[in-house]
């Protein structure tokens, strides 16, 4: 006798007969979000694991769930899976999301500096600062650097963030550049 349900089998059964579960339709979406989010946040998730999630879900559902992660979570995951990428530490959140999705698809992470500095022929000379210049940029045979996944639309402007919670509010609550701005005089404007 079974002591517990087979969760996967029950989830499959719900998915195959949603008409039998009308009262939980919105909960299913929430649960799906929560389950995949938990998997993405798992410390054990590696690149192969991320790609397996993408293969299982498809690119768009994964992108929607990645969009729902906090910026810091996406950055942490992207930098963990692509430790040596030169641009991830300072890039905008949208670049982290795009890079994570690119990694999930097929982009290779940037190789460690030592490996990339290894010359094609001849022995390595004495190590020095020159061998740790950081990853190469630009086109070439080396691993790709972060590029936008699509150039169909302009780069989004960085979030014009308000002071986050915890920071002091502006000294003048009425301060506003827009409300203080004045339109130029129209060419034929009357006094």
């Amino acid at each position: 006798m079974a002591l517990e349900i087979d969760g996967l089998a029950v989830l499959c059964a719900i998915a195959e007969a949603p008409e039998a579960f009308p009262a939980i339709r919105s909960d299913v979406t929430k649960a799906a979000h929560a389950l995949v989010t938990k998997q993405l946040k798992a410390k054990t998730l590696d690149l192969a694991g991320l790609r397996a999630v993408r293969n299982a879900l498809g690119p768009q559902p994964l992108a929607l769930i990645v969009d729902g992660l906090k910026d810091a979570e996406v950055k942490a995951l992207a930098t963990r899976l692509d430790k040596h990428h030169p641009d991830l530490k300072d890039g905008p959140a949208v670049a982290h999301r795009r890079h994570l999705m690119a990694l999930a698809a097929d982009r290779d992470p940037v190789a460690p500096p030592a490996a990339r500095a290894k010359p094609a022929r001849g022995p390595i000379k004495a190590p020095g600062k020159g061998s740790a210049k950081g990853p190469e940029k630009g086109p070439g045979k080396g691993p790709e650097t972060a590029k936008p996944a699509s150039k169909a639309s302009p780069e989004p402007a960085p979030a014009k963030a308000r002071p986050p919670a915890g920071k002091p509010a502006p000294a003048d609550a009425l301060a506003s550049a827009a409300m203080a701005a004045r339109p130029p005089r129209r060419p034929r404007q009357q006094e």
Partner: protein
Amino acid sequence: MTGKRAQGQLVAVANMKGGVGKTTSVVMLADALAASGASVLVIDLDPQASASVCFAGDGVLAEMITAGRTLDYYLGLRIVDRDKAALPDFIRDYVSSTTHLGEPLPISLLASGPSLRVVEREIIYALTKRQYSMHAIEGHLWKLFQEDFAPLRDQYDYVLFDCAPGISPMTEVAIRASDLVVVACIADFLSTYGLKAFYETIWGVGSASESMLAPKRPPHVLITRWQNTKQHATTYATLQASAAAEGARFRLFKTRVPQSAALANALTLEYQTFANKYRDATRDLIGEVITPVVAELKEALDGA
């Protein structure tokens, strides 16, 4: 991504009463429509410039005002000064910093500034000086709207008007000329009372004229800032009954927009993705509210 419509739809979000969630509704609808792949233009008809600052941010809006790239400047040129000006030149594309699936939302903005109030007064003075009657002024604005604003349908899937509380002449034209008027309304006594006045002004007997036609459809009331209180429940039940009655004068969205901290936060520029803007640990506004509201909006526009 949806395919580009042959002709976009004009939607006015309005109410004579202030503080009922018009701008919140516009921001929510614009974000949702754009996230579903539609191109959206938001036209801010309110001198408070609330929608403008929500999309552009204070700094960019200040630049637009200083450069004379706002609705008020355009109206001053076209009507008061009778200068040539092309409306698309005053529109800023990709103004939103919100992204969806790694791309910025395709939202454009025709911003307003505080000078809109002054320019609307200038328009009345200038046209009165030219011996225009009140009807002629209305007719002039109507003609301008049809010539300059209506063609924007060809460039955008949706044009959303964030109407000012009260009804300025330009706001009234936008309301009458739109394909659908969404009336944001709180389910309480004062807001519903204001709804009656608004209805009588725009849709009531004798409210239309040769110069200003009646709106194409009855108003569609969207309950905003919904709270599970007795007063809201009672008022909502009355609205439901009125909307369901034979010869009903308005339609009622089935979905109600809740009073929500997540929705209030969505008006700030803190969130970068559409998902993060409207979904948090406590609430999934996308699934519970936004998706059904957008579905109802499209259904109403399709004439169902």
